[in-house]
């Protein structure tokens, strides 16, 4: 784990240095694609939040192998302090995972709505706000530990506060789609599902942010349902979208659209079967991490339905894997710009050459390819 943490920090340093030091001429920070902005903030969070994890792991190693007493209450140490250190990493970690998901949505939704992203500056500010506030909410994982009322209240408020910039982003994505010419190929299907699912996930999160509710629901299957809704329904769906969107660019071949849509529907059904219904046993009191349970508590039918959903999800994933392999071997050539998109990568060949760009491009707006394709109406007139 320490090994992979070192890898993560190295990658984050790389990402920040690349974005700050290697942009092509004309690409000021205000003209970068949103994906780049979101990855910049993500890398910053990795640097500030993953390092505490390695510190905590070193402390655990010292306790376990050198007889240390960091978490040894008999010697004056504190087990709660592990929780603090872990969650100081753990909560920003989920923002590390979700910001790139937002990045994919922010690139794909405009292209499939044939409209530029609504409110670029606000999206950037909201991202930075999420980065900052996300570092101050960690103890909402510890409401049941017995912190003071003041501490609990602070974390309740900060957790609710983070819903604001996140909600702004959802609003902006929807506003991007509004009035656009929507195309529902596989990447867009996954992104639309993401919008709806992430919203629900955020709402269950806000219910958990209310400390007294968390005292009842904490460590139950309601929490499990909530975070899987975010991670699977939010993040994994956009990752599938990103796969389908950039597969033609990276591999140079088109994937099979029919199989992709089958993947989407199977996985969508399975996801909702599993994780919608998972909220119910949680509300009925089923705790996490138990290997079995008594019959007659009202949990049985829900657990059954949840398990059935797994079958659909597994089928979806198999089709996804099959589609990728089949398309890699037999897919039709994709061309440089199959989606008629606007960011720089679509100007290279598919796949791009090793050196990416024979001549470093010069850009003048947020959508350089739009400017190229529409010289009579370039973006830089309006930005």
């Amino acid at each position, binding site marked *: *784990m*320490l*090994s*992979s943490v*070192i*890898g*993560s*920090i*190295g*990658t984050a340093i*790389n*990402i920040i240095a*690349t974005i700050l030091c*290697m*942009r*092509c001429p004309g*690409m000021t920070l205000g003209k*970068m694609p949103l*994906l*780049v902005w979101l990855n910049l903030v*993500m890398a910053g969070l990795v640097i500030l939040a993953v390092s505490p994890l390695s510190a905590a*792991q070193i402390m*655990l190693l010292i*306790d376990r192998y050198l007889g240390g007493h960091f*978490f*040894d*209450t008999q010697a004056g140490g504190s*087990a709660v302090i*592990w929780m603090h250190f872990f969650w100081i990493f753990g909560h920003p970690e989920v923002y*590390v995972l979700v910001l*790139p998901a937002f990045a*994919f949505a922010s690139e794909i939704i405009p292209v499939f709505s044939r409209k530029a992203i609504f409110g670029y500056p606000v999206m950037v500010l909201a991202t930075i706000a999420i980065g900052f506030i996300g570092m101050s909410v960690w103890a909402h994982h510890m409401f049941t530990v017995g912190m003071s009322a003041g501490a609990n209240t602070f974390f309740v408020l900060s957790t609710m506060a983070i819903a604001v910039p996140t909600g702004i982003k959802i609003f902006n994505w929807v506003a991007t789609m509004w009035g656009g010419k929507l195309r529902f190929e596989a990447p867009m299907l996954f992104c639309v599902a993401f919008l709806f699912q992430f919203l629900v996930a955020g709402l269950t999160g806000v219910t958990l942010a209310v400390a007294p509710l968390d005292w009842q629901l904490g460590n139950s299957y309601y929490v499990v349902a909530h975070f899987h809704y975010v991670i699977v329904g939010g993040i994994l769906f956009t*990752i599938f979208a990103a796969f389908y969107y*950039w597969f033609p660019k*990276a591999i140079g071949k088109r994937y099979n659209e029919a199989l992709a849509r089958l993947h989407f529907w199977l996985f969508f059904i399975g996801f909702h079967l599993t994780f919608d219904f998972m909220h119910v046993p949680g509300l009925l009191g089923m705790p996490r*991490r138990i*290997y*079995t349970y*008594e*019959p007659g508590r009202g*949990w049985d039918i829900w*657990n*059954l339905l*949840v*398990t059935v959903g797994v079958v659909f*999800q*597994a089928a979806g*994933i198999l089709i996804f*894997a099959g589609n990728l392999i089949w398309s890699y071997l037999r897919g039709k050539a994709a061309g440089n710009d199959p989606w008629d998109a606007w960011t*720089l*990568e679509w100007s*290279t060949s598919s*796949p*791009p050459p*090793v*050196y*990416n*760009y024979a001549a*470093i*491009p010069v850009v003048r707006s947020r959508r350089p390819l739009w400017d190229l394709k529409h010289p009579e109406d370039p973006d830089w007139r309006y930005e």
Partner: protein
Amino acid sequence: MSANTFAISELPASRPFTLRLHEWVTTVDHKRLGVLYILFALVFLIVGGIEATIMRLQLVRPHNDLVSPEVFNRMFTMHGTTMIFFVAMPLVFGFANYLVPLMIGARDMAFPRLNAFSFWMSALGGLFLYFSFLGGNGLYGAGSTPDAGWFAYAPLTAKTFSVVASSEY
């Protein structure tokens, strides 16, 4: 003459497998490293999914006995750790590696060799953790993988309560 000085499309179509493997293992090209991260993540997605499936099958009805409590504990610990650290993070880094230089008009990342080093460190971490399946009482007892939950709360993970040596893997 090193194969890396040509664009990929200019290389001869059939190169020996060992040469191709060597290119992939020693690459510092952000696109290839991105693909490596993503393939690594997809493999662990399947593994983490199997761990989830085992848990769900155990919970499909009350008083089920598909797996023992010890194995179940190892399953939920490994499922969480795997999905966060060996699926989601590599996917995130993989896509970032692939896309960021292309989208800013750059030829590679700022530190290509650090990039390669970071990938292999992450891969090593995955290997270390999964190596723990081979310890303890063998594979059907899920080895000596960690069993204290992915957030590894003390004091359960302290030496007194968790003799198994894998909690900090």
